[in-house]
């Protein structure tokens, strides 16, 4: 079951990265693309807890750092998603209690993830990050990620519930 779950999660994350890079630019608003990978990581962390969130966050972030056309210093998304996965995992009990709480977790995760990525870019002077650009991108990204939440998070939660052994089900 663990192997099957790992394979399914790998496939889900790979699909999310592919869609985010190859399809979602078509619906960019003010140049900001919804961060599907981030929402999927949050969904998985909500389903499985902080440990899983950290692991999946790192793997998904690193893949997003390396997949073409990425040109920034590798490890920046990984760093951001590790933190987001951990925090979302910690908040899973509250977030699974109500839909509003789940939306708030995604909003917080989007803010933290996008800012951490931007911050690491500012510190490393990598990839043309400017304070102006960050302030411009942050609110749009947050709203867009929240819009994705009702479409993505319930799907991820349902998928993980099906993959969980019955005895451990919450």
């Amino acid at each position, binding site marked *: 079951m663990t192997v099957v779950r790992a394979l399914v999660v790998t496939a889900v994350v*790979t699909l999310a*990265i*592919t*869609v985010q*890079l*190859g*399809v*979602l*630019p*078509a*619906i*960019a608003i*003010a*140049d*900001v*693309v919804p*961060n599907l990978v981030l929402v999927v990581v949050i969904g998985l962390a909500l*389903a*499985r*807890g*902080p*440990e899983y*969130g*950290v692991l999946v966050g*790192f793997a998904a*972030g*690193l*893949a997003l*750092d*390396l*997949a*073409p*056309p*990425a*040109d*920034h*210093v*590798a*490890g*920046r998304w*990984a*760093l951001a998603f*590790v*933190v987001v996965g*951990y925090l979302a*995992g*910690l908040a899973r009990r509250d977030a699974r209690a109500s839909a509003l709480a789940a939306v708030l977790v995604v909003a917080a995760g989007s803010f933290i993830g*996008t800012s951490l*990525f931007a911050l*690491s870019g500012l510190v*490393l002077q990598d*990839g*043309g990050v*400017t304070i102006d*650009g960050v302030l411009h*991108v942050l609110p749009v*990204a947050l709203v867009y990620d929240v819009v994705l939440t009702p479409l993505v998070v319930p799907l991820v939660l349902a998928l993980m519930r099906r993959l969980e052994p019955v005895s*451990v*089900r*919450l």
Partner: protein
Amino acid sequence: MRRSDRPLLGPGGLRGGSGDPEGPHHDGRRPRTLLAVLLLVSFIVITLDARNRDDSPVDAMRTAAAAVFGPLETAAATLSRPITSVTGYFGDVRDLRTANERLQGTNDRLRSRLRTGEFARQRSHELDRLLDLGRQRDDRLVAAQVTAMSAGQTFSRTVTIDAGRRDGVRPDMTVLNGDGLVGRVIAASSSSASVLLIIDADSVVGGRVGRSMELGFISGEGDIGERARLRMELVDRAADPGVGDTVVTWGSRNGAPYVAGVPIGSVSRVETSPRELSKTVVLQPYVDFSALDMVGVVVDADRPGRDDVRAGARGGRR
């Protein structure tokens, strides 16, 4: 310490997962350890990659990731094309046949533009008459489709194209389309390549203002779409480019990373500040970067003997 007697591995792992009914306190330590470890790994990756950008040990992982995600992005872009084309973002290509036709047109227009462009005429007039039109550049282009695009959140302007090493694409090759210069290849895997757009804040292109042939360095501002602008720092402060003048690539000896004579943009504003040593020219790029679709990669710009002809001509004039 209640948790200290719980084994880190073994049966505890079964109960200690997310489904544990005893609450978050029970599995608090292991996630924190993992968080610390993976944060550390992230920092190590960042450090390794940032310390040596040109020859990074992470590049091997990048190549592996490109081998996986390059074909996936191509498939995703192909599958989603009928839907995404409705929004007009990737252009109005409905299917591969029209894409092919457009590409042919693009190719022809590019060739004629390169041959008869303002810069080409200027250069042939100014350098020497020995280079007749038949000897003018006739670069070999590899056609490619844009399959993925970096998001605004990444603050970098890069795209993936569906041509790679097996098509002859290598890093530091010029990428252009029917309108003008798009960027240069920064990484290539077997079936895909990443292209740094000239509007990226890290991109610098040597260019000259078409009419006066003044040299300058053109850098991107990171904006895309309507707001996309390029800044050109002129080497000669006395130069006086006019609004609307064409700026073309300056080009280097072997056409890497940019071949000469590709139109970049037109002058939209000239900024003069008495304190600055150089004059800044604001350019409007010819290429609409928010609607990139088919592009061409110049795979054969280094023509044998071209430098010899040039050198001989220059020597003979002295």
